[in-house]
């Protein structure tokens, strides 16, 4: 909260300037416009919390907006309640609607999610029309205007809108700077990796849509008070949802300033065009407005805020230096005092020799038996290598072990507990860390932030998480790269980053999926050294490779998979000489050579 407040200085300056301007405007039409700029900015911010940060585009925010607007309108007409009370009620209803919509709709991804969201406000639109609420006018309360938020001086609405915006901005900042925001950003960049790093993606997405719905509904409720007339199309219509998208995308996605900038430019432009040109040629204002949007998006596809920021940084590079130094201090500072992180390693309660036992694991895709009846044990503190030719089912086996896939049959025991069919984030919590064959970085975050995401599962506070992350980064020797963006480093650093991200969650067992792939000889040697050290520190390691060479010196035992089944299991020396293994890798005719 304190950090959030401190970072709001630019906003407070903006708000003060805005209030000054608003107080000098006497024309009620322009005053209304000043209010609406803030209303749509707040609405854009509510959309941003869900869609900007998680990347799940919602075309249906009008549903929340409309629920809010009709709550104030109908609440005042039927129950004679004051908007001072109805706006909070609308907020609660919006949160509820967010939750109800989120639970089924988050089963869908990408475009399916976006388009399904479209259906909610439109379904509601026709329901409200059918109920006979084609045009609802808020009753005038001449005897007690202040109690019913009906002010003759329109400037008061602008002040109220400014307060509303300030609250929304503060909430956004708090989200941004907490693990909530980090989790959302991680989901946006790579949902699977986020889940594997121990983030309960569904939970955070539900939080996001609940919060977003609550704010959008509050904004809609206030909008009804300002305009005094509510029609289904004006609050549930597609253009309302589009408004949230337009102001945010125009201004810049995933930043607090985006919706504010977008709204401050677009709303007055549209209104002025409407007032100046609307009566000359009806429709011309929207043509110009549309053209402005199209041209801007061609020039700055990422939105104005990001374009302007890039421009400033290019023009005055010293600003970048100070900015990244800021990050550096916040990130590295707590690194020293982190000894007291939750104990999760060595001190395991039960002392079964096998940390992980797999029995009769099966998985089919259609007719393909990717994994059939696979079973093996991993003893505590050892390094197990799973090898096999391409398509042997190695990665599928990993996906079953860390919960990305549900096995058709079989059992997975982690430290004597049955963990079959758990979700990835639950398994991560239970102590299973993993890396990916095709690396899954959160590309637009720094290496340090990537690792912090992995630490949340073991940390109660953000400071603790940063400490764990700093330790993990130090352990893999990535400290010099901590402040680079994950999208701009080499394969070696990404492999190390994935390792650190998994380590930050303090796993008892690490699943490494072809960690050596794409690395040169010396880089591979470096990584093998690190893995060996981790094993010495007490972490059990299961590693997949399809090249045997590097593995022979690293692992304690091999499990060889072929056609989805265990072919051989044993010591490295015996496995490499086993004729069945040679046959699987090279074909029958080589077995004779190998034995000779």
């Amino acid at each position, binding site marked *: 909260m304190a950090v959030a407040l401190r970072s709001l200085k630019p906003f407070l300056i903006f708000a003060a300037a805005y209030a000054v301007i608003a107080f000098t405007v006497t024309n009620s039409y322009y005053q209304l416009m000043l209010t609406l700029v803030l209303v749509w900015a707040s609405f854009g911010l509510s959309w941003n919390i869900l869609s900007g940060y998680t990347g799940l585009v919602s075309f249906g925010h009008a549903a929340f907006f409309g629920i809010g607007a009709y709550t104030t309108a109908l609440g005042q007409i039927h129950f004679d309640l004051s908007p001072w009370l109805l706006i909070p009620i609308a907020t609660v209803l919006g949160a509820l609607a967010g939750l109800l919509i989120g639970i089924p709709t988050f089963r869908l991804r990408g475009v399916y999610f976006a388009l399904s969201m479209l259906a909610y406000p439109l*379904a509601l639109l026709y329901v409200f029309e059918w109920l006979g609420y084609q045009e609802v006018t808020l009753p005038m309360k001449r005897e007690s205007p202040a109690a019913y938020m009906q002010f003759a001086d329109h400037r008061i609405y602008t002040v109220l809108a400014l307060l509303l915006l300030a609250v929304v901005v503060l909430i956004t900042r708090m989200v941004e700077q907490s693990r909530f925001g980090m989790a959302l950003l991680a989901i946006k960049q790579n949902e699977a990796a986020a889940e594997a790093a121990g983030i309960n993606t569904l939970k955070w997405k539900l939080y996001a849509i609940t919060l977003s719905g609550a704010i959008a509904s509050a904004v809609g409720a206030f909008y009804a008070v300002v305009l005094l007339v509510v029609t289904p199309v004006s609050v549930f219509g597609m253009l309302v949802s589009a408004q949230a998208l337009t102001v945010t995308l125009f201004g810049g996605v995933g930043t607090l300033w985006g919706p504010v900038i977008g709204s401050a430019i677009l709303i007055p432009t549209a209104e002025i065009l409407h007032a100046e040109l609307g009566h000359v040629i009806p429709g011309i204002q929207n043509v110009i407005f549309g053209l402005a949007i199209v041209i801007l998006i061609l020039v700055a596809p990422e939105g104005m805020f990001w374009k302007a920021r890039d421009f400033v940084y290019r023009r005055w590079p010293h600003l970048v230096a100070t900015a990244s130094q800021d990050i550096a201090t916040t990130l590295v500072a707590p690194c020293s005092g982190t000894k007291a992180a939750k104990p999760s390693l060595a001190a395991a309660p039960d002392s079964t020799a096998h940390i992980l036992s797999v029995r009769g694991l099966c998985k089919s895709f259609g007719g393909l038996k990717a994994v059939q009846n696979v079973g093996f044990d991993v003893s505590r503190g050892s390094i197990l290598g799973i090898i096999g030719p391409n398509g042997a089912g190695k990665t599928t086996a990993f996906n079953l072990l860390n919960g990305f896939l549900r096995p058709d049959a079989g059992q997975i025991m982690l430290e004597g507990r049955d963990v079959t069919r758990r979700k990835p984030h639950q398994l991560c919590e239970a102590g299973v860390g993993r890396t990916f064959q095709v690396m899954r970085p959160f590309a637009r975050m720094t290496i340090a932030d990537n690792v912090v995401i992995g630490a949340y599962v073991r940390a109660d506070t953000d400071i603790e998480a940063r400490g764990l992350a700093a330790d993990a980064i130090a352990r893999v020797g990535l400290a010099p790269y901590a402040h680079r963006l994950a999208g701009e480093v080499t394969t070696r650093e990404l492999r190390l980053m994935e390792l650190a991200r998994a380590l930050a969650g303090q796993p008892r067992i690490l699943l490494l999926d072809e960690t050596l792939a794409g690395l040169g000889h010396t880089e591979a040697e470096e990584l093998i050294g690190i893995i060996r050290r981790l094993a010495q520190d007490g972490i059990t390691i299961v590693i997949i490779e399809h090249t045997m060479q590097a593995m022979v010196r690293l692992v304690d035992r091999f499990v060889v998979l072929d056609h989805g089944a265990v072919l051989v299991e044993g010591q490295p020396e015996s496995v490499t000489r086993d004729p069945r293994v040679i046959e699987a890798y090279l074909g029958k005719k080589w077995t004779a050579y190998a034995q000779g």
Partner: protein
Amino acid sequence: MTAQMVENFLQAMAAGLLVGSIYGLMCVGLALIFGVMRVINFAQGDFMMLGMYAAYYFFTAFGVQVLLGSTVGPYVAAVLSGPVLFCFGYLVHKALVGRVSGTRAQVEGEGHFAQLILTLGISLIIQSAGLIAFGSILVSVRTPLSSSAWEIGPMWGDFVSIFVNKSRGVAALISVATIVALAMLIGRSRLGKSLRAAADNPEAATYMGIDVDQAHRVAFALGVGVTAIAGGLLATNYPFAPFVGLEYVIIMYAGVVLGGLGSIIGPFWGGMTIGLVQQLSTLVLPTQLQNTAIFVVFLLIVFFMPQGFFGRSVERT
């Protein structure tokens, strides 16, 4: 009583099939664009509106009515709107959409946002420019066929017979013929193969010497053209105005999602489903809730069959 209900049901069914086959064509046009380019095109409804007006002006102002008469003319005009809008779509892609999509879209997520707002902007321009150019009064392409019907039946001993509006029947037939032609184009021709390759794996297609951006351009133009024909066919039966696009774009998306994203023919059945749900819902619900019924059915199907009827799984871990 029972015979009456059966007749109502069959009548609604027939109406649903007829309008559904035109919705299906609309959806196929949109799906072509989405399937190949992965771009959500919000302006599709407005392209369709342009198709309607193209058909209207072909018929009234460019001599189709004079040459071919009022019976055949509207359908010829509807089909002619296809090539015109094909060219228009081609230009729009070249000038605008192609700049933020295809191989030029660098980052997956961010590029996506730019495409959305760009098509929203295009939609706004077309709608408002349409208002200036065509006026806000509802117009329609009149054909004498729309006031006559074929009678199927009587069946069940004279109790039940269905009337099929001739104009809608002909429109549905043309719609189906267009789909068949399009399916053959996509399935058999060299052009179709390059479109499918570009859709399947743009990067690999590039390595194989396919100009992916050009393939996208053709797909976009083709999608716009096909939807425009659907618009022209609708214009023979329903009055329209420049803002009509908004109403249909939602039907289109519902149909495409139902049919399955990434499939070309699936969306036809998706659009058909929408048509049937819309017409059959009138039997039990007030007409105002017709569209609500569509959206509820849409949500139900999407929740229980997230891949649609014919779609393929896109997500992999």
